[in-house]
């Protein structure tokens, strides 16, 4: 076998491996190697803050205007105290096309929360302004908290 055919063979072998790799990625869904419940459990376990409570099932609709049935999974935690702006939302979308609607709902919610707190609790309004929104593939994460940075890192590490 001369060098030419050796490199040609190697090229085709690598191409075949590339095709297999792409297929495996497409089938296994690279961006969601972890399920919603795995990520949600990790978040729940590490955000065991006394100031946050898991919201009632209708709260996503009431607060964000979103129907939880439209998504693969939703974790919403709201502040125990009405005086606190703290909030955590994690949604796994069924489809990326749902992203604009979710982002818009989040922005709307932030705008509302900001206007509520602006007048009488500027420090809470600041937390809303410093809210972190992270989107990774079909995973959307929002956190309003004094500990937003760490919670954001926690979310990213749980993916």
């Amino acid at each position, binding site marked *: 076998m001369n060098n*030419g055919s050796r490199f040609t063979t190697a090229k085709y072998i690598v191409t075949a491996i*590339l095709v297999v790799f792409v297929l495996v990625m*497409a089938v296994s869904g690279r961006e969601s*190697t972890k399920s919603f419940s795995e990520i949600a459990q990790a978040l729940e376990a590490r955000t065991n803050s006394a100031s946050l409570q898991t919201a009632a099932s209708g709260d996503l609709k009431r607060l964000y205007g979103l129907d939880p049935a439209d998504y693969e999974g939703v974790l919403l935690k709201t502040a125990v105290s009405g005086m606190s702006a703290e909030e955590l939302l994690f949604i796994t979308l069924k489809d990326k096309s749902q*992203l604009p609607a979710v982002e818009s709902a989040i*922005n709307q919610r932030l705008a509302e929360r900001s206007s509520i707190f602006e007048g009488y609790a500027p420090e809470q309004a600041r937390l809303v302004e410093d809210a972190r929104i992270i989107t990774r593939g079909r995973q959307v994460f929002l956190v309003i908290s004094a500990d*937003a940075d760490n919670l954001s890192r926690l979310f990213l590490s749980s993916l």
Partner: protein
Amino acid sequence: MVFSSLTFLFVFLPVVFAAYFLLPKSFRNYVLLAASVFFYAWGEPVYIILMVLSLLFNYFVGREMEEKDDNPAARKKCLLFALAVNLGLLAVFKYCTFLHLSLPIGISFYTFQALSYVIDLYIGKIRAQKSLTAFALYICMFPQLIAGPIVRYIDVEKQLKNRTVTLASFGSGVRLFLVGLGKKVLLANAVGAVFALITGRAASIATLTAWVGAIAYMLQIYFDFSGYSDMAIGLGRMFGFKFNTNFELPYTAVTITDFWHRWHISLSTWFREYVYIPLGGNRKGVPRQILNLLIVWGLTGIWHGAGLNFLFWGLYYAGFLILEKFVLARFLEKLPALLRHLYALLIVLVGWVFFFSESLSGAFTYLKSMFTVGASGFADALTGSSVFYHWLLWIAAVFACTTAARSLRKRLDKTRRRAWIVNILYLVLFFLCIASLITESYNPFLYFRF
């Protein structure tokens, strides 16, 4: 791993420097390659496989093409196959959104580098790289791996084999890296926060606030991306590589043509060399030239993403470039420099709205906020707070875009007398960046998404 992270600055980089400079020179490519693979795997433990397969594929294509030197038909077949596989991979991961594949970081950059190698090899501008280590290093060298600049093989071919690092070149690399770090950490992140605050209320923005938001993004993307490029070029210098400039004060441009000679130069050079010129460039008459420009800028747009807004953004620039070339050139020349400058800035600013918007309709909604007075009025509390609360930031950011800032830095860098004062200034810049990084949230570079 990102350059503006404490892990990179205080763990990764010192270890790589120690290994690079303490081991014998013959080990340098191995050290850089190992570091680059580790750097990429840190953030993409799965997609490292894709990158390695991609580089192996292109290496074998190169060797095969050289073996078939006397067989033009076979070489052409080889080139077409390489184009299909490289562009196919890019298409699958970047544009087939229905597959739900996340975008491998840097794929647009390393694929374009690989394509430049294969095409130049086919044309006969270069010889195939026989060393797999040197070729792998070209594809995945960590300074420019994940967000450019897009380095053409022809530009670093000799340096892959033999390069020297002097104390002066190392020092100049460190300084450029610090300038880039400062652009990213102190300016891009800060104006980015203003932009996020304003667009977080996109449902209803006052006219002036919408302008402030767009200007904030305009500055953010410049400092973010040019900051990354400065860091990449600076790191390259520290390891003995000379990468070409990627940004040349783009916001000092006086026309759109001028702007694109200054913005993301490595990308526009790539499209000019490998698409525009092969299509015939300006050599086949005006209608064909216009078509070629539309193709190139349409592709430039979708290189950034699958969204219609990116395609529109590319074609928007094609429109202005064509207008300037065939209609506006003489008129613009007669205008005072200030007016020409304002014209260029306005076109670029509106262009960024298409770029940062999630959709085309979102872009037009935002533009409507900028050019009409809506429910929120002409100005609101946010206008004042975003301008006056950050007044120092705005002054610093605008100054940093000007030729005055560039001249000042060059003068400082050339200072021989009291050079220690300049070094202290750079040290202060470094400490300011570190102080900011310690309290910073997750904040990746904007161009990672491309």
